[in-house]
Structures are given as structure tokens and as C-alpha cells.
């Protein structure tokens, strides 16, 4: 990890302890620190992944951005006949 990443994790730990410290034992603070360091590693792989200004977030996962109509082409839904379980539902 870079020193910047470690500093960011330590800052988050300080903030977490400020918010919730009265609930945390020394052992839990140590575990919390390890979790925050690990989260920082994961964030690093996201922050270094190249994105362009127009790349929108999947805030609501949408199938329609990725040409999903192709999956609805011939063969994807092989039968137009509904099964009885669906047919009988009100």
C-alpha cells in the first residue's frame, strides 16, 4: 500500500473512533484498522480503473445499456407458451 492509502485509512479510523469509539474495545479497534486498510486496497483498484467523463454509474443496474435486446432474440425465449404455473396465476 502507498503511504497515501495508509494515511487515508488512518484518517478514517480516527473518524470512526471519534464516532463510535466508546463502543469499541482495543481488539475491535485493531480489527477495524485492518478492515479499513483492506477497504483502501479495494478502493485503489477502482480509482485506478480508467473511466471517461461520460461513463455513467450503474446506480440503478440497467440491462438496456449493454445491448440486452440481443438476448431477447430468437432462441433466448424458446417457447411462447406459458407454463401452467404462470397461466393459472391471478
Amino acid at each position: 500500500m502507498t503511504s497515501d492509502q495508509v494515511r487515508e485509512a488512518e484518517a478514517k479510523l480516527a473518524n470512526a473512533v471519534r464516532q463510535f469509539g466508546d463502543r469499541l474495545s482495543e481488539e475491535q479497534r485493531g480489527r477495524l484498522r485492518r478492515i479499513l486498510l483492506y477497504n483502501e486496497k479495494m478502493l485503489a483498484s477502482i480509482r485506478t480503473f480508467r473511466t471517461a467523463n461520460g461513463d455513467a454509474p450503474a446506480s440503478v443496474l440497467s440491462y438496456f445499456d449493454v445491448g440486452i435486446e440481443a438476448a431477447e432474440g430468437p432462441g433466448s425465449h424458446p417457447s411462447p407458451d406459458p407454463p401452467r404455473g404462470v397461466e393459472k396465476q391471478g
Partner: protein
Amino acid sequence: MLAEDTFFLSVRELGDQIRTRRLSPVELTEGYLGRSERIGPRFNAYVTLTRELALEQAHAAEREIAAGHDRGPLHGIPYAVKDLVAVAGYPTTWGAHPYSSQKFDYDGTVVERLNRAGAVLIGKAAMIELAGGLGYSTGYASLTGGCKNPWNTDYWTCGSSSGSGAIVAAGLAPWALGSDTRGSIICPSAWCGVSGLRPSFGRVSRYGAMAIAWSMDKLGPMARTADDCGLVLSVIAGHDPRDHDSLPPRLAEFPYAHAALSSRIPLRVGRLTNVWREPDHQIEAAVDNALAVLEMGGATVSDVEIPDGPYEEAAELTILMEAASAFQELISSGRCSELRDPVGQINGYASCQFSASDYLQVQRVRTLLQKQIDKLFDRFDVLAAAGQSSAASPLRAPPEEDFAGPIERRAPDGISSLCGLPAVTVPCGLSKEKLPLAVQFIGRALNDQAAIGAARSFQERTDWHRLRPPGV
């Protein structure tokens, strides 16, 4: 008294017998309830048995069928539901102590749909606390204790749909509903030697189900066969305006057709060659054999690599960030300290430190990864990989030192869950310890048919799914 073999029949087989009046739904329900009461505690499989409701539903089904009223493939068929779905009047514990006395006065949509289909609810399946939403380090992280694998009770079922896996494997119900945010149907199905389907995101309503990560949570069946999973999905899939992420009706419905799947040949299978960090050689051999079976049936199998990208990190971070919001009240009140797992007790405090811009950046990367994966399906109908990187692992006490090792950079569960893809896992062998091995088939978003079809094609030619754990 029913023969023991009856309890290991598929939903389709049981349904055929019920519709032709060779099998009584009441007798079948009594049988499964008796087994669940007698054998279930060995595995910590259930939180609650719903005996009264089950018998009421079974008697109703029996009356209707006798009168010629057929509600379809699940009519009179018992099932269990993971204890994160609301069932009116019964405890819905989310597997966690802070919610041990929680009750709702309504049914989740999936239970409503199953009620309308005449299915018989026999119990609420044990699960990892909060389905692992605040993290966990061992299988003991559950209100009901560690869930034991029916194949060997020294081993874990995997989670978080632990009880659902044990219930189906031990013949305590022919199918059970699980939930999957990142692998929680796929892993317990694989380790328990049953067939599990994680449907496309948005296909099955989650109204009335506990939320972990809204953009990743799915509900789906765990059953004896992939065909059964298709039958169940045909009943539980459908648009629901009460679920924000529910697909529109035309896309949400799943018109499963038994015969049509077989005609879809040749099936194009892409075998993922760069997933799992250190796959067990026994599993790799079993997957090779499984794909050879499909080839003999006319499928084409080619190697393919997952493109490089932080799939697992994006999946894990999305869950951590959304769960910090979903469980905000539990975290801010400090009641997360009542969770069993030492990670779950404090992980929410760490997740509260993420920023909004980090969340959005993860979701931007996710969109790009989704497009990368989708391109693979221009060449393949399904992607295939081991169900898990190993057979079941022993049920262990929490580690004393650290909370977790590095995540699997390319575990297919994270990749496909992140992108909302359907996946089916089915048993394809036994390890030298006599524990199940599994192969999984991942389909393009909304093409659940392809994943079910590939798994069904394999099961039509093999009998791994008919093996039963010893002593149950």
C-alpha cells in the same frame, strides 16, 4: 407411510404423482415435516417450522386437486423459504439476534406468488446473520449456530443460504428459496450437492425480503434439478411495482418450457480459464468431465478468459456501501454488537467511512465491467466454471487473528453477481472426501433459459444430482 426415496424425488416427479392422484399432498407434507423435525436439528437447518400453515395449505391443495383444479407445477409441493423473507405471523429473524423476535403482518411477494400457485410452506430456513450483509468470518455467524453439511456434519454448508442448502440435500423439502447477493445461492448449492439458480437481477421481486445491497440482491430456488429450478422460477418471476428494481412485465416473466430447451443446439459453452485463484484439481477434472458430457450431446466448448478488471472489488465495495445504508439503524444504534460474528459487529463502522464519490466511482466502473462481460455472450450461450474453487470446507470457529484473507480476484460469483447475470450450479462429482463438486453455467442477463438449459442438458445425461448424502 411414504418410502424414503419419495423425499428425494424432484419437484417435477412429485408434481406428476400428485396430479395423477398417486401421491397425497397431505401425506407428503406430513412426511417432510416429520423428517424436518427429526433430522433437521442435526444440521441446524431451520429457524422455524410452519407446521400449522403447511398442513392447512396441503389440505387445501388436496381438496382442489381432487376437484380438478390444477394450479400448476408447484401445487401441493412443500418448500422452505430462507428466513429473510416475510411470512405473515411467523418470526422473520434475518438469522440475527437483534431481529430474533421480528414479525411481519404480510407476506413477501415471492411467498404471495407461491401461495397463489398452491405451494406448501413447511418452514423458514436457517441463514448467516443478515445474509452476511455486515460481513462474517465463519459459518457460526448465525442465530441458529453453524449449519452442518448433510454430506458430512464436520463440514459447512457455505452461506448465506445455509439452511436452504442443507434442507434440500437432506431431503427435508424438495426445494427451498435462497437469496444471492454475491454467491449465497451458488456456494451452498455447490457444497451441499444440490442444483441452485440465481436468476437475472430484477426478475424475482424482493418485496418483503431483507435488503443487503439493493443493486445486487436476488432471490432464487435451490432444488434437486436444474429443471426444477426452471419450474420454480416460472412461478416466482414477474414484475412487481413494490420492488424498485423489478423488471418490466415483458422481461420479468419467465415462460419456462421444458421441451424447447433441448432443441437449442448446438449450445456454445465458453469455459472460463482464468477464474478462481487456486482451483482444486479434483474440481477442475470434474468440470472437464462435465463439459465433455455436454460436447457428446452436441455442444461446442471453447476456452475463454474473463477480461481484466476489478470485478470482485467492485462487487465487495458495492455490498459494503449499500449494506451500510440498508443497516444504518442497526449500526448507528450500536445493536450490531449483538451479532455473533466479530466482523459483523464492527464492519458497519468501517463502511460508514466510504464517500459518496467512491460509491459512484464503483458504479461507473461497474457499468464498464458489465459491458465487457456482456460482449462474451456474443460468442457463447453460457460461460462455465467450477461451482466453487473447492469442495466444502470444515466448519471452523472464528479465526483469532484476522478477519479475512484477500478476496478471490476473479471468483465467478462476484463477476456475475455484479453484472446481474443468471447462473445455475449443479453437482458434477464427489471429492476424495466424498463431498460434492459442482459446475456452474452463467448466462447473459435475462437469458436464464440458457443457463438452465445447459445444466439440464448435463443432468439428462448424468446422475450426480441423484446421489444422496449418507445416513439421511
